[in-house]
């Protein structure tokens, strides 16, 4: 009978028998479907909770005062919650680290994708992964004990805990992201491009600089954006090495305080559901919106690049 059935089976039958499986199978499939959707639920939940605990702030303070206020005095009376010095701090540290990490990271990616022998590539890539794996608190620790005294004496500063110290440490943390995604982008450029260029008599360097890198540029741009996203969100390192002065910096050799460090440093000392607590959550919401925008755009760019690139 089994043979008879298998002879008469057609595609519709297969679908039907697969669908009308036992109820346990139906349950499992629904559970799997639900967990697939869970990631969307989580990202929405994070945003909802950030909003829920930051909106009460606006009963007593205006959004404009938060976004354009130049003073962050959370425990003065009345308290002033102005984000500008913290935004400036995050911006200074981020810009500094990007200036270091982008040329370095893109150069390393070019080297790995186009120049390095496979044996070198296979031994350097794990090292880059190791760099990504070193905990941010360890970078902060090394920055605090090794780099900061060095910066202090080199520039003859009152303190070595400055925006620049943070930038240097954060550059190391942005590097793995920038390198691995840029390398993927360069490797994804069709090999015909390279072959056509070389066949026309271009040198390897001309091929790299005028064909491969321009072709991978949108991927590299996305890599840089993701690196920026990583740096803006970094917390422990900047908390430990940037000096934590909530002032608008005039040079990178001054102490700054970033948005992330403010949350980390002050949340432990606030009363739950106080004005200060709500203010810290609103910093979190601003951070979430910024990183969301960066990651969202980077992913759209990457997605388009992958479709066009192949």
């Amino acid at each position: 009978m089994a043979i008879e059935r298998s002879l008469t089976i057609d595609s519709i039958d297969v679908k039907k028998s697969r669908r009308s499986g036992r109820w346990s199978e139906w349950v499992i499939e629904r559970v799997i479907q639900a967990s697939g959707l869970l990631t969307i639920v989580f990202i929405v939940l994070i945003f909802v909770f950030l909003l829920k605990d930051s909106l009460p702030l606006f009963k007593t303070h205006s959004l404009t005062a938060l976004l354009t206020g130049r003073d962050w005095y959370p425990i003065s009376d009345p308290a002033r919650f102005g984000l500008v010095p913290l935004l400036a701090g995050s911006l200074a540290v981020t810009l500094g680290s990007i200036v270091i990490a982008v040329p370095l990271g893109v150069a390393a990616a070019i080297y790995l994708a186009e120049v390095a022998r496979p044996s070198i590539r296979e031994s350097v890539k794990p090292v880059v992964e190791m760099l990504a794996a070193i905990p941010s608190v360890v970078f902060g620790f090394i920055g605090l004990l090794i780099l900061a005294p060095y910066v202090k004496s080199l520039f003859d500063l009152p303190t070595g805990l400055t925006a620049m110290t943070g930038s240097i440490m954060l550059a190391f943390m942005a590097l793995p992201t920038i390198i691995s995604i840029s390398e993927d982008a360069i490797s994804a450029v069709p090999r015909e491009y390279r072959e056509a260029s070389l066949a026309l008599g271009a040198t390897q360097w001309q091929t790299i600089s005028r064909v491969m890198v321009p072709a991978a540029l949108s991927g590299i741009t996305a890599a840089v954006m993701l690196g920026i996203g990583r740096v803006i969100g970094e917390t422990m390192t900047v908390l430990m090495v940037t000096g934590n002065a909530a002032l608008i910096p005039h040079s990178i050799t001054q102490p700054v305080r970033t948005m992330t460090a403010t949350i980390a440093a002050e949340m432990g000392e606030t009363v739950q559901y106080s004005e200060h607590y709500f203010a810290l959550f609103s910093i979190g919401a601003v951070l979430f919106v910024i990183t969301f925008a960066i990651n969202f755009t980077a992913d759209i760019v990457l997605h388009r690049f992958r479709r066009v690139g192949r």
Partner: protein
Amino acid sequence: MRPRGAGEWLAYGLLYLSIILVTLPVAAVLFIVISRGYSAISWEFLTAMPRMGMRAGGIFPAIMGTLLLVLGTVAIALPLGVMAAIYLSEYASRGRLNRLIHLAIVNLAGVPSVVYGLFGLGAFVLFLKLGVSLLAGCLTLALMILPVIITASEEALQAVPQSFREASLALGATRWKTIWNVVLPSALPGILTGAILGVGRAAGETAPILFTAAAFFLPRLPKSIFDQVMALPYHLYIIATQVPNISQSVQYGTALVLVGLVLLVNASAIVLRSYIRRRRSW
């Protein structure tokens, strides 16, 4: 293809330099932490409770705290992450919903760790009233490593050849039976690699547990999942910035244990992955 002219030599020189500058920090961190920290490492340091305001004794509760946090985190994130990956790889069609889920994963991966900490505080500690506890910390960290596990698992599932699935379905197995008996076992090493990478990430993070699980000083092991715990990265932060007159060897010793733990976990993931690549027979 030899470089042509001085300009090209310079360009290649800069490329070589960049790779040296990129690998240097890893070597430097390892060298500094090992050379200054190894003298602190002793049996007592690893297995004793801290004494004299953390200036003497050991870091045992911090090590155990991190291990418990990581175990709990993986226990929560692994099943969820693998199921989400199964959905994406085996069930979802290449439609708009799939793209939306991928966008959510990318953004979940990009949420700053301190924002996870805020969410954990707002949602788990206060809203669900779990308190500052091991459980709240594990839930927060699980959310954070979910993208790592989903991405690695999805990749591993998609690397399983289509013919495996077709062979199983042709033998009359249902879709779930095929996934459970054929696809998952083939993808298991890859999924494990993702889980290990997630472990490394969870073990090293400080910001998410700052307000959800970590105890400043608690010279005993947690009694239940609703108890606070000490954790290695937070302990390093505390003794580096909050405790005056602490000997550097204790600080570097703690850093060495943390770096050693995290790099060991990551190295095992890298080794496992290269083993899979060599052994893969399809």
